[in-house]
């Protein structure tokens, strides 16, 4: 299958902590097609970032450990690559942008230096070529006077501009996949709109695939083609974007959408709230991780962990209950 860029199967990651082993990712499988934008949605601690970091082998080992799984990138398992090979993939074929642009940039190197380095390292450009390309990249992400601003240091850029630099850096080696980990969370709404617009434009121009990790269901709605929702280290729902917002099926997804007030809200009513708090997983769950907070929970939910099952074309849900009827799913 040539159009499957990325095929992750049964990924499991644990972390050793003084209080015990935390099972952060518990068998996550997903795919990414060419040109597709995949939204990964979940609250803090649901395992969304750890999944991506594990895949790229960016988690510190120890305390982290990838226990099981495969991550096939063009048929090659990222988890089995040598350190040298994976380094070539990261920043080369797979670019990443992170939440906080200030901590991901080196404060004592100029923006130009930081942009040129990967170009010389991964693409093998000469110093002069790299400088020209760096200026092009900065201009592409919408920074005025790009050539002069290469000489500036990160602190001379605003938050939104730093995030643009991160995007320029991630795109510098023309990656096939861009992984964006909450890239707009630290930014104001007007700047967030600038950045998502920029990413959409670049996506259509370059034709790359994107994995966009976020807790904000609003941002994903306007950006992604397909969405996976994570909870307690599992994918609990997976669906094309329109289907997900029209027919949210897992109780957690329903709760998340219900707990959001909307700018286009008509009637004022109490928000739907999910009681309780997300779990910390010291044991690998043997039951549904959401059962303690679920109003539909039945006996089976406390004993067996549901697998993802199709409910509509391309729409899969891990839940024992049919949330439309409240009865067990047949």
């Amino acid at each position: 299958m040539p159009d499957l860029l990325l095929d992750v199967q049964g990924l499991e990651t644990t972390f050793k902590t003084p209080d015990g082993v935390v099972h952060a990712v518990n068998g996550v499988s997903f795919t990414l097609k060419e040109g597709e934008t995949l939204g990964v949605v979940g609250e803090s601690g649901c395992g969304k970032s750890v999944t991506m970091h594990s895949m790229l082998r960016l988690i510190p080992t120890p305390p982290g450990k990838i226990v099981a799984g495969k991550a096939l990138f063009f048929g090659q398992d990222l988890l089995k690559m040598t350190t040298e090979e994976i380094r070539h993939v990261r920043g080369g074929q797979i670019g990443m942008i992170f939440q906080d642009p200030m901590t991901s940039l080196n404060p004592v190197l100029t923006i130009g230096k930081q942009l040129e380095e990967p170009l010389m390292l991964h693409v093998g450009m000469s110093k002069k070529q790299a400088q020209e390309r760096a200026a092009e990249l900065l201009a592409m992400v919408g920074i005025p006077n790009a050539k002069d601003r290469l000489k500036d240091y990160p602190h001379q850029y605003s938050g939104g501009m730093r995030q643009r630099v991160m995007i320029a850096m991630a795109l510098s080696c023309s990656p096939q996949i861009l992984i964006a980990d909450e890239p707009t969370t630290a930014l104001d709404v007007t700047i967030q709109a600038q950045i998502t617009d920029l990413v959409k434009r670049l996506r259509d121009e370059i034709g790359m695939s994107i994995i966009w990790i976020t807790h904000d269901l609003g941002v994903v709605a306007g950006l992604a083609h397909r969405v996976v929702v994570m909870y307690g280290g599992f994918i609990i729902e997976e669906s094309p974007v329109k289907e997900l917002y029209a027919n949210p099926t897992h109780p957690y997804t329903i709760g998340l959408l219900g707990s959001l007030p909307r700018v286009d809200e008509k009637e004022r009513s109490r928000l739907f709230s999910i009681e309780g708090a997300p779990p910390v997983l010291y044991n690998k769950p043997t039951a549904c991780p959401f059962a303690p907070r679920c109003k539909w929970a039945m006996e089976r939910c406390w004993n067996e962990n549901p697998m993802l099952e199709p409910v509509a074309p391309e729409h899969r849900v891990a839940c024992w209950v049919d949330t439309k009827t409240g009865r067990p799913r047949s």
Partner: protein
Amino acid sequence: MSNNNAEILLKVEDLKMHFPIYRGVFQRQVGAVRAVDGISFDVYRGETLGLVGESGCGKSTTGRTILQLYKPTDGQIHFEGADLVTLHGEEMRRMRRKMQMIFQDPYASLNPRMTVEQIVGEPLMVHNVATGKEIEERVKHLLELVGLNPAFSTRYPHEFSGGQRQRVGVARALALQPSFIICDEPISALDVSIQAQVVNLLEELQEQFNLTYLFIAHDLSMVRHISKRVAVMYLGVIVELTDRDELYSSPLHPYTQALLSAVPIPDPLLDAQRKRTILEGDVPSPANPPSGCRFRTRCPIAQSLCAESRPEFREVKPGHFVACHLVK
């Protein structure tokens, strides 16, 4: 204004808060950060006034200055008949009981070495309204009010989750039975599913005790949900203030329009339909704000007039205030 019969609880008039910038060996003042630069608004008893704006627009400074955590550079703050700016010592201390604050970061705003009972009970002790056993009773009652198990009163903040900690913060703010609470981004640090819990709690408490809130936030959808009226701030000034439905359905100021259009809607169909105004550039520095209208450097419809004089904050429709030259 629209609700003439409602009692004004707080009246802010031409409030200014400039933070001096010192430079050089002699620490001479070379300028000032005009965090809040002449704002006026009223808050009615029992309502929630939302105060929105992007980071650095001065919304938190406004809240802190109202509570006299900073001494304002200029202006008046009338609260229950007294001008807070002129109050000192014991008078101010007594006034403080009536106004409380809930902070953004439930991790930083609770002392990690104090138990929940000490944290929630401290205001009672400091203001001599209860002692000994009575404090214990009151704290247990307050914890119940905010939906925490009273048996947890001997625990420390780190034993609670973010949402629970914010509930502790709410309990502390309620301890002295205030009439006015400033909520400074009370839910920004919380997970989405927990945000709804805290907002619902705030709404229930408001109904129960007829509380008045100044709700400071950058999340426009949450502000729309909780507020009766909303004020929009940009670079130290209020650019628009009106009823929440009016603001969201027919915003007049170009900044409000852009801000609203930038908010993502969690619905792919609606999101695709609407027209978006994307603002260029960044917010200018409040130490050196643009002349005339503060927003003109990013405004899509700015004219030469906007650079010359500062637009007056005027009532263009009953209860709808706007500061823009171009709004008729």
